């Protein structure tokens, strides 16, 4: 995909694929276009070239509300819960597009996130950062999504809570939900990922399995504190040939 918001293009021929039941992680420096790739998938970025496909169907240019109705669930980086709605009401809103009885699904969510069960009646805005992130993910899962998009779900969380979130992401995935996740905590994210992409300046830079990228010296230098800094990565000649 190639596309931009109003003016200049911010992603250039980026190619990202999520296969059934996969966890795919997008990493890259700030402003690399990771969130923009998600916006492109959601119909919130003008796509000038390329295609967005969902289970084989072309969704390019389809407006966001219709994409969401097709089962693409998105948890934005910030502002991802309704603060004045209770935890339970947030989950109910997550099921807004469902017309069947979703109460069993709510109970499943409380089983997946036990800390939320005690906070059902609390306004989401009064919860801790980690609990709010849990509400946001649970809300997105209410529709039993075709694919779940998470934008930096562990940003700003303590290491312990971060671990909880990664564990839950894995668990959700083991039930069969494909996940596309943007993450700054690259080591942990690649640790649970089937595959990953490295984006730099709105382009694909590297692609590989989670383990493969973890072992890659360029990835180590850029994101895992392996020394050498970004300059080494910029100098590397891993090119567009790795694009999927």
């Amino acid at each position, binding site marked *: 995909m190639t596309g931009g918001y109003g003016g200049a293009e911010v992603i250039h021929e980026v190619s990202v694929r999520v296969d059934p039941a996969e966890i795919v992680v997008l990493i890259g420096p700030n402003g690399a276009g990771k969130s923009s790739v998600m916006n492109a998938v*959601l119909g919130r970025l003008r796509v000038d070239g390329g295609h967005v496909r969902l289970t084989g169907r072309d969704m390019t240019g389809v407006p*966001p*509300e219709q994409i*969401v*109705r097709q089962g693409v669930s*998105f948890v*934005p980086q910030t*502002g*991802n*819960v*309704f*603060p*004045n*709605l209770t935890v339970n*009401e947030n989950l*109910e*809103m*997550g099921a*807004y*597009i469902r017309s069947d009885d979703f109460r069993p699904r709510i109970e499943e969510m409380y089983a997946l996130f036990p800390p939320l069960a005690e906070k059902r009646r609390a306004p989401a805005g009064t919860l801790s950062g980690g609990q709010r992130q849990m509400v946001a993910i649970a*809300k997105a899962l209410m*529709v039993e999504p075709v694919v779940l998009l998470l934008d930096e779900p562990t940003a700003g969380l303590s290491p312990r809570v971060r671990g909880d979130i990664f564990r839950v992401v894995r668990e959700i995935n083991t039930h069969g939900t494909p996940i596309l996740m943007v993450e700054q905590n690259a080591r942990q994210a690649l640790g649970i990922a089937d595959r990953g992409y490295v984006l730099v300046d709105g382009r694909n830079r590297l692609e590989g399995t989670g383990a493969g990228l973890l072992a890659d010296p360029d990835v180590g230098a850029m994101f895992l504190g392996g020394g050498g800094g970004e300059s080494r990565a910029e100098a590397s000649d891993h090119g567009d040939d790795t694009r999927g």
Partner: protein
Amino acid sequence: MIEFVNFHLVPGLVLGSIYALGAIGVTLTFGILRFANFAHGETMTLGAYFTLALIALTGLHPLLLVPVAMALTALAVLGMDRLFFRPLRHGPTIILVIASFGLMLMVRSLVQIVWGAKLQTFSKGIDLPWVLLDTLRIFPKHVVIIGAALGLMAAVHLLLSRTRAGKAMRAMADSPDLARLTGIDTERVIRTTWIVGAGLAAAAGALLAYDTHLHTNMGFRVLLPIFAAALLGGIGRPYGAMAGGLVIGMAEELSTYPWIGTEPLVPPGYKAGVAFAIMVAILIWRPSGLFRGRVF
């Protein structure tokens, strides 16, 4: 003491209930559509005149016809949204505010053309008060107005806290962007908001007319106190608007009580200034209102 209850406390509660009903619509529109709707007073006027027309048509008691007038007003406002606000929805807020101002003038003129500019009343008879304990005089119509207003506010509470449509309204007031990403049908939420706001405004207008009389300026005259009530309660906070309406209505009526000496504290002619003074005070000292609403 009895004079206080008869001439200040009860009228304050009546006026406050009417303001509260009006302020809920203002605050919902602000919270969900994100603009100050200057045509809201005219929506009240419309509700009163629709009731008048229905009385002429059917000869039934005004209170039986208020629900019908509420429905007619809601339909009219949905039409106005379709014609004036929806095409401007994605532009800057100030355009919507100015459109509402224009609509306010248009509706008022239309009401004048159709019903004339003179004072009118729902019924010609005189409402005799119940006299309790020799001195306490309670007008049946006041009991009815307060009761109807409380009933409607309870209905709003149930809508917002128990129904899917009401929760979606609160969700959209929290974050329109997240609401859209959640798959909430935002145009439908907007329609619900207009229906609720217009219905309550129509009821408020009809109750005001039932208490006093009808005039084409009646809605415009209460627009300021209603904005003050919405601000006092915190913009976007329906419960705040209810409380704010009661406080402003009471403040207006209590301000004319001879608290010090024998003269009214505020001459009755300046009663309307009380809401204005409260509004200025809130904007200076506590712009988020009592219930921590949105600051703009």
